[in-house]
């Protein structure tokens, strides 16, 4: 097999499969015994995810006009938005997330943004992950610092499907990473020899030790997931995913679902991880982004399948879980000249999990009236993303407010944690 992908769909599926990164951290790091079971998954959607398609405000009078050919049709129409309230729906590709929303286990923050206003992917992702207000302002990520203030680290491990480490979990608390594919043979001599050779290497020593420790766990998790997948997937699909009939899950979603199941297996293992960060890439839809179907729909179906796998795999532990999706910025309110959208400002965060408190949208909706648009261009931000993260860290994981204001999100005392997200 070679790595060159041809159809757009295959291309997306594969690049996404490569682009998903799971990072795990934290075992028994919680001071509060009540919080000891609680789990948090942060999914970073890279490329600037179009919030107006994730949670289309089809009830906003300006929406259809601004969006033209890429507008998601209204409630009840063919390919229409899945209704959340009178204004908002979810994209039809987010069907599993919608099922959760109907149980009160998924909500949206439809006008959320980081403090960055530069519309640069790389700066904005940096700010999203470093937890500050300026790009390149810190070399550690806020989730790593949150672990740091929660308690002394013990046996922290991580897993990365893309083999590279995202900023959000980089920092003083050691994290682990894992990706599928060839690993170390446990009975070989080389790992032991290298551990000795790396004894005084500050980078390679800890990295190899963590990598090896995660391997054993990964094997167990994969074995578990594989047996579950065989049990619940019709044999024909396993053999030939391309043969799936029209209307059945899109190509690549099986992989995404498996990744979700694998992450769940890691999190529910006896010494499982409580906190994880995941990256999903390729949301930069400058041209031909599509509506109910198309480029963006394929990406969202992938995201949805991952969430579905995670939800299924966590089983009863879902009740103790919060999942947040976040992107570096939203996209322009108006469709551009190439049936896509350019870099914008506010976007949508999905907040999901059995630990959620039932409720409406998180934050205010500024509307899409021309006068309301940010710089006559983008959805205006009404909620600082740090407020959402702070709310989740405080109420779900019991992180102290003062530490949130100064260490996790430095200089953010004026940004209040969003209240009442979790039950």
């Amino acid at each position, binding site marked *: *097999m*070679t*790595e*060159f*992908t*041809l*159809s*757009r769909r295959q*291309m997306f599926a594969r*690049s996404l499969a*490569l*682009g998903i990164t799971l990072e795990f951290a934290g075992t028994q790091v919680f001071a509060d015994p009540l919080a000891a079971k609680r789990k948090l998954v942060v999914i970073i959607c*890279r490329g600037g995810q179009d919030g107006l398609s994730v949670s289309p405000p089809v009830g906003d009078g300006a929406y259809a006009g601004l969006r*033209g050919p890429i507008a998601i049709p209204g409630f009840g129409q063919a390919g229409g938005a899945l209704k959340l309230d009178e204004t908002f729906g979810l994209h039809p590709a987010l069907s599993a997330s919608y099922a959760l929303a109907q149980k009160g286990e998924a909500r949206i923050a439809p006008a959320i943004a980081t403090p960055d206003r*530069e*519309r*640069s*992917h790389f700066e904005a992702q940096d700010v999203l992950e470093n937890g500050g207000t300026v790009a390149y302002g810190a*070399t550690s990520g806020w989730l790593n610092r949150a672990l740091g203030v929660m308690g002394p680290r013990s046996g922290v491990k*991580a*897993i*990365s499907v893309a*083999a*590279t*480490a995202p900023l959000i979990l980089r920092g003083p608390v050691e994290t682990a*990473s894992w*990706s599928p*594919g*060839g*690993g*170390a*043979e446990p009975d*070989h001599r*080389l*790992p032991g*020899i*290298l551990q000795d*050779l790396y004894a005084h*290497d500050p*980078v*390679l020593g800890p990295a*190899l*030790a963590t*990598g090896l420790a*995660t391997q054993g766990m990964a094997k167990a998790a994969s074995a578990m997931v594989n047996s579950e997948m065989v049990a619940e997937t019709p044999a024909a699909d396993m053999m*030939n995913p*391309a*043969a799936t009939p029209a209307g059945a899950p899109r190509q690549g979603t099986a992989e995404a679902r498996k990744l979700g199941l694998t992450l769940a297996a890691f999190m529910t293992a006896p010494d499982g991880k409580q906190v994880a960060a995941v990256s999903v*890439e*390729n949301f930069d839809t*400058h*041209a031909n982004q599509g509506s109910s179907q198309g480029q963006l729909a394929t990406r969202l179906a992938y995201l949805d399948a991952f969430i579905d796998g995670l939800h299924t795999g966590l089983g009863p532990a879902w009740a103790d879980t919060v999942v947040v999706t976040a992107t570096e910025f939203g996209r322009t309110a108006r*469709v*551009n*000249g*190439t*049936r*896509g959208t*350019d870099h914008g400002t506010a976007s949508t965060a999905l907040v999901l999990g059995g630990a959620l408190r039932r409720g409406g949208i998180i934050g205010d909706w500024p509307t899409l009236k021309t006068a309301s648009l940010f*710089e006559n261009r983008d959805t205006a931000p009404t909620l600082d993303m740090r407020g959402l993260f702070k709310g989740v860290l405080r109420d779900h994981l019991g992180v102290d407010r003062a530490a949130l204001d100064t260490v996790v999100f430095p200089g953010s005392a004026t940004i209040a944690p969003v209240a009442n997200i979790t039950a």
Partner: protein
Amino acid sequence: MAYDKDLLSAIAVTRLGLGAKGGEIAQTAADPQGWLMAQIRPQGADLFRADMPPAAERFRQYREIQLARREAKAGDAAATPSGVPDSVQQIRRLIRQDAGADILSRLQLAASTDAAFRERWALFWANHFTVSGVKAVTANLIGPFEQEAIRPRVFGRFEDLLVASSSHPAMLLYLDQAQSVGPNSPAAFRANRNGRRLGLNENLAREIMELHTVGVEAGYTQADVTEFARAMTGWGVGGVREGEGEAGRTIFRDAAHEPGSRTIMGRRYGEGGYEQSRAVMRDLAASPYTARHLATKIARHFVADDPPPGLTARLTQAYLDSRGDLSVVARSLITAPETWAPQAQKFKTPYEFMVSSWRAAGTSPEDIARIAPVMASMGQRAFAAPSPKGWPDDTASWAAPDGIVKRMAWSESFATQAAGERDPVVLAQNALGARLSPLAVKTIARAETRAEGLSILLMSPEFQRR
């Protein structure tokens, strides 16, 4: 330079080159700087594939798939069990083979070249002007892009490199410029009459400013990006309308160009069709911000994640004094004392790691179908950088636990095939010269098999760094 000569030659070959082939460090020892200088040449970097068809031909191949698909949709879509007609599958296979052959040739050049500094310099610029194969339309264009736009110009003027990259079909397609139309252009009006909406796409304009030239430090605004995007309208790739002769070639559609003058970063550019964006690029290339941005990236790539300020300043000055002559910048890098710091501070990317392994073992990759998945597993899928920013160039990105485990697994299987009857300690001395530590020598010497010794060498801290 006060360091000992053996160390200097080891640094030249491993840090600025692509890792030592057998005997390379010894041959370089007489004059490490001269060895590097001699690799700079006006005609640019080596082409890795002499018989590569031009981008236009590759583009036509891609278009055939689209046509075949459209026909299949109209006709008997269920012709084969997978629902994909044979004709489409055949062309797909062809494209996959083409891209695979390109990558293999590039790896083979790196594994064997005697001018490894020149090759590293070319790889740096290819990454600076990233076109990624994650888009279907660019999947088979990366090779032609590099050979046509980048490699001939890496020791020329940066401005020429910038223009060649920005106007190559691969870049125009990758960053959506090919579809961007001036909202007040004749083409847009014509389309509007027919009920189609055409307009601006600012993707390439933004990335030229942010990634390729001045960088965000320059403090440009959204208005500057939009204005530059307007100036860029007209650049496109020939399609059906232009006829077979122009298909897949760069064209400038006057009818799609936004009329009027533009103001970008405080400077006014009069109406002038293609000349307008050309003038903007000229100014971007001449900007001190660009000089500093490029100098920082070069210093980071060649010397340290956190580049020595002295080196960055030196390279900036060389760029400005020479009006962006990249051969002068390369010479300045070679003569700078910071370049020769004894401590190896760069952690190899997977690509660099594999290439240096082949060079150390005196072998060359043969089967792309086996290598491509390995590269992907280490986090660096060939010709498929995750974004226009290209591959990261820092230890924190590459030294993740999983990445190290993947390197170890490959070292083991590679060494089993490559070790042969050679003494791994000798291979280590050839590969690292004066950079080889006594601890590594001792560990390699204690190996149970030659293959184990070679895999220890490849995984040693000094081999993983440069």
